[in-house]
């Protein structure tokens, strides 16, 4: 559990981060979202003390981060940044093994861990471990960057706009990967972004920052249906709110018995996918399949009724 306790950062009398308090549960993804200048990156960097808090403190599993020397603290916290920050003169294996090397792990343990992580990120260890960052695609570099941050099995993984430099298609794949790996490893992740879509898509909880203050800290559904301030509503976007809400609800929630024409959707699809399928093909209902067997249908009426619930 990460407890952020009335943490404040002041630059020349201006509060960049103003008395933020929040608690992050172990094994969850928390997204800190805000516009530039909202203090979201400063908040993140105070957790591993790349910035020293002016007041307040952070406790990881009950222990204050101020009790450890900054560089030793950072070796326990994974850190992934925009534009990956890989060392251009080190091979992929040495990049991923950088923190274990700082922690003096034995060589064979490091190389076993490197291969394990490459496999986890769907990169063949034999093909990739001896390459240099310049020989990888943007998406591969980003995966190596995240793998490096996870290498020493840190208590916490901090990510500062990790997908910011990727094109949209690669970005959504990277987000899916992160979700999958986080669920597999049970990692605790705090991720900073300015992209509300990303926040809603990835977050178990979303923290919205505005002018150094934490204005709302809630589940994605709550952020969309009950924005605490006008700023949060703006961030969500009034026009897109119903669609964003539908994207969080799986079709399995409103599936009903009966048949429908045309191609089927998988049970894991969202209501937004179902709505899109209906509108695009002019149908009033689409079949829902589970492992290739049709289990029912979702109707346009059911989607509309669900959207009107606002929650």
């Amino acid at each position: 559990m990460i407890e952020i306790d009335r943490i404040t950062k002041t630059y020349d009398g201006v509060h960049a981060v103003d008395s933020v308090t929040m608690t992050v549960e172990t094994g969850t993804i928390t997204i800190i979202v805000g516009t530039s200048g909202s203090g979201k990156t400063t908040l993140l960097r105070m957790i591993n003390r790349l910035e020293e808090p002016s007041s307040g403190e952070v406790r990881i599993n009950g222990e204050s981060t101020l009790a450890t020397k900054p560089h030793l603290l950072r070796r326990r916290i994974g850190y992934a940044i925009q534009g990956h920050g890989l060392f251009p003169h080190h091979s992929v294996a040495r990049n991923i093994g950088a923190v274990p090397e700082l922690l003096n792990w034995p060589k064979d343990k490091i190389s076993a861990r490197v291969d394990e992580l490459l496999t986890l990120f769907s990169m063949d260890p034999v093909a990739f471990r001896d390459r240099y960052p310049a020989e990888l695609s943007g998406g591969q570099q980003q995966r190596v960057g995240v793998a490096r941050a996870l290498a020493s099995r840190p208590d916490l993984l901090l990510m500062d706009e990790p997908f910011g430099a990727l094109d949209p298609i690669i970005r959504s794949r990277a987000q899916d990967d992160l979700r999958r790996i986080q669920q597999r490893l049970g990692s605790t992740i705090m991720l900073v972004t300015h992209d509300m879509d990303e926040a809603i898509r990835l977050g178990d909880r979303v923290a919205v920052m505005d002018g150094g203050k934490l204005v709302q800290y809630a589940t994605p559904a709550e952020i969309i249906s009950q924005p605490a301030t006008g700023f949060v509503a703006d961030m969500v976007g009034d026009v897109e709110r119903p669609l964003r809400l539908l994207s969080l609800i799986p079709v399995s929630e409103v599936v009903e018995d009966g048949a429908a024409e045309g191609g089927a959707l998988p049970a894991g699809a969202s209501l937004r996918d179902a709505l899109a399928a209906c509108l695009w093909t002019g149908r009033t209902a689409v079949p829902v399949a589970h492992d290739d067997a049709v289990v029912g249908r979702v109707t346009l009426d059911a989607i509309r009724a669900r959207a009107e619930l606002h929650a």
Partner: protein
Amino acid sequence: MTVAANRIVAGEGVTVLALAGAEVTLPGLVAILVGLTLGLPGAWPQLRLVGAIVGLAGLLWLLTHGASALLDGAGDYARVSPAVGFWCLLLIFMLLMADALANLAPGPLARGTLLAAVLAAAGIILWSGALSELSILQEYASRKAAFANAALRHLALALGSLATAAAVGFPLGILCHRRADLRETTLPVLSFLQTIPSLAMFGLMIPILGWVGNTLPGAQAIGIAGIGFAPAFLALVLYSLLPVVGNTVAGLASAPPAALEAARGMGMTPRQRLLRVELPLGLPVILTGVRIVLVQNIGLAVIAGLIGGGGFGTFVFQGLNQTAADLILLGALPTVALALVSAIVMDILVDLTRPTPKGGA
């Protein structure tokens, strides 16, 4: 070729055809012509390289055989030296060779081997005495001991000042990299030093070090005086500082900011960041600075001859005073060769320290 009655008077030109019998001139001329025909068309660098080597061999053949033929019965003081035609052809073949090599772009190892081969060939040719009848080597023969002394002194000046500049400059560069205020005062001062003309710098050293030698007790005992080795050495060190410090700062700053941020974020100490990230990434740029200093100092050390610093400059200035062109060449040619060799060696080192392989591998 030029023949002169002695080393001072201007020589008389002798064309290649009048040099000696056809059995001597023909093979040489043919080799030169073949070399030019192979070398001038631009399409195949390999062919150009072969052409250059054949052409050089032809020149060498003419030089060795022609010299002995001309000196036959010409008297003890007569001097033979290559004339304009020889130097022009030499230049052409060297350019062809350099161009072919640049096109072939051999790896560091291949270049090292090639350099060793060329040096060995030059050594063998000089050692064998085939050229010993040329005037420049006649000058050498009468100054063997002085030449060895000058060579050692020249190397001591160039390499010693480089080592001193490195010992001072690397730490200074690292400090400047860490602290912007230091950088902003240091680099302009060093740039200013660099703009002082070399003759003026050596001249200025005379009163300054002369004063130090006279006032500071014990200074003269360790060789500090207005003229001689000390002022020359100090001037060279001062000239070396800007390239060393400047390139160290530039090299350390060349590490990508994101990589440094990541290094900090993963818990590297400042020392670890310097040793594991900034220095390895900056090494090629830093070594380029060393290369500049080395070549520059080998050249500048010639001027040191003017204030009694020794080195090859001694021959150059003696030659200037006596209007003996061969003596000037005796000082200048080894200097040029030394600078070329060290430039090539340093380039190989720079390539070897490149942090990532270019292209594949």
